[in-house]
């Protein structure tokens, strides 16, 4: 049987931890939108790259040039939702590390998606069978089921996500370039359920294929 004094001190410690957790949560959620010493940046995501420890580097093309966001894993899972072409607003502090400067968002509430990538450009609805009739570079939105999802490592050392797509009308190959997909995309495609893909028409080995920009 657990000694009362031992259980008592453990209980007090857990209680103190709970109070600290509640105070931390309250402090996180009561931060101002633009705390002192922080800057706000708005722009289109041009590159998304995972870094050690589950963090992300996100390049934003803003009015004054490009700015790299450093998304620490301590911000939570929101970072996985960032997709190339999205418009995001970030409020954070500028830090330099190894001669490069990064913007670290203050908290996950200070990183907001203003518009998803597919609202920035016009994607016409299409089926896989009609892709061959469209010019290269045409932007399409298709509903299809992914299969054989795998990472392809190029000679240049890049990791691209390649897969097959099928719908009731036909099939085609598809690719997501490194820097344009996230683990969330990989997981969604890996489920094999029907998804909406935003892509550009391309040609691979004489057949129409898709360069996918985003998945929903």
């Amino acid at each position, binding site marked *: 049987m657990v000694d009362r004094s031992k259980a008592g*001190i453990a209980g007090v410690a857990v209680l103190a*931890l709970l109070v*600290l957790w509640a*105070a931390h949560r309250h*402090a996180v959620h009561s931060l101002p939108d633009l705390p002192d*010493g922080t800057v706000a940046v708005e722009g289109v995501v041009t590159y998304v790259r995972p870094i050690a420890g589950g963090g992300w580097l996100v390049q934003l093309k803003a009015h004054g040039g490009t700015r790299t966001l450093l998304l620490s*894993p*301590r911000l939570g899972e929101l970072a996985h939702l960032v997709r190339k072409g999205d418009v995001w607003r970030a409020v954070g502090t500028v830090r330099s590390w190894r001669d490069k400067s990064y913007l670290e968002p203050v908290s996950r509430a200070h990183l907001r998606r203003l518009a998803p990538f597919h609202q920035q450009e016009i994607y016409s609805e299409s089926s896989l069978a009609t892709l061959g009739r469209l010019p290269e570079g045409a932007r399409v939105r298709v509903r299809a089921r992914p299969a054989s999802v795998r990472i392809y490592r190029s000679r240049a050392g890049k990791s691209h996500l390649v897969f097959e797509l099928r719908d009731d009308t036909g099939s085609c190959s598809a690719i997501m370039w490194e820097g344009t997909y996230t683990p969330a995309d990989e997981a969604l495609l890996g489920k094999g359920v029907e998804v909406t893909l935003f892509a550009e028409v391309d040609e691979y080995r004489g057949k129409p294929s898709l360069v996918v920009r985003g998945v929903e």
Partner: protein
Amino acid sequence: MTLVAFLFGCVAGLVTGLVPGIHVNLSTALLAGWAPALLGFGLSPFTLAVFIVSAAMVHTLTEVMPTLFLGVPGDDSYALLPGHRLVRRGEGGHALRLSVTGCFRGLILGLVIILAILALEAGGFRLLEPMTEWLSRWMAWLLLAAIAVLVATDERPAWGLFVLVSSGVFGLVVFATPLVPGGSQAPMNALFPALTGLFGASGLLLALAQRDQEQAPQELDFDRRPLPWTPAFLGGLGGMVVGLLPGLGGGNVATLFALGRRGEGAERDSESYLMTTGAINASDALFGIAALVLIDRARSGASVALESFWAQPDRLSLVWLLASALAAAMVTREVLWRWSPALLSGLNRLELPSLNRATLVFLSLMVLFGTGPGGFLVFICGTCLGLVAPVVGCRRAQAMGLFLIPTILFFSGYTARVVTFLGLESVNLPASPSSAGYLALSGLAAFLAGWAVYAWTARG
């Protein structure tokens, strides 16, 4: 000016080392807070770095004195600590010699390794960065294996696991919490109240709670028997691991080494443990500083303080800093060899419970003034958590879960998932430099309050 900084560093390290419950990170954090003002007066970053390195080294060698001679509780869980076993028999001098010799040998080994690495790097062989990169791929598994062994071999594994996990959750909360103003980059960030509570205040409270106990008269004439090199050699290597890699603490590695030496008898076990721990601490302090130059990472309180005012220390500066660490260690060794009876009699003349109360008041006020009410809450929580291990009888080193759990999550890539699940998303606020005048006044007020408490409560 550098020599003056060295001497001040030695004195600061001696004071923080001899006063129970005070960590060297307190003086280095204070100095980092004053750094902008001191640099404004024309002091170079190198001069400030010499202060920090010499203070850290002297503290490492002297902190064993209050641990051995002022913190000998009557509780059975403490009786297992090897140094206390010797002190209870009146062999405090031997315990001190073992620890200081271990420290010194660990320091020498660390110096040799760092100089060899620098020489190899100068010759074009890059060793450390590829090695740490390779290790980082396996880090989560290595640390998981280490904590599995540490918990499984604990006398109370269930409680050990409880302390480890709760300290880990505590670590997830305190790293980059907005409760402490100034952000995670501030010299006095949330780690200061967390560590002060977890390891400092809790130990002082326990010492205050125990009944008065007669201490055996201590034999302080150091014998000249040759001491083995193996524990110091292992400790030096262990210190390198602790200093360069994140997560593990000196206590964890010392316990792992002690497990490997089980069955050699309590006497040899105690001696080896003391030498190994000393060597780990010294080598860890040295590698923690060197990591800033060698792998561009801050791995100790001293290197965090250095990083806050010295953007990119070069390799030549590192060699000079290592030389100042060696000089500080040599001075301290001589001081301890020659004056430890006087130091001990001075310590024994102090009223221990009053000294503990005074230190507790000093630390509490430093936390309150330096980190605000939010930091004080972190301090209280850390103190409560720090009390659990000694009360339930598991290893105190399990509280290093504070660093271990967040490090394992980071290297396994699960941080984002876990912080979202627990609602512990952190905050990156800009560092707000504390005013040097405010820090000086805070330190003075806390010291005066502690002194007043001592004077009020001491007998006579």
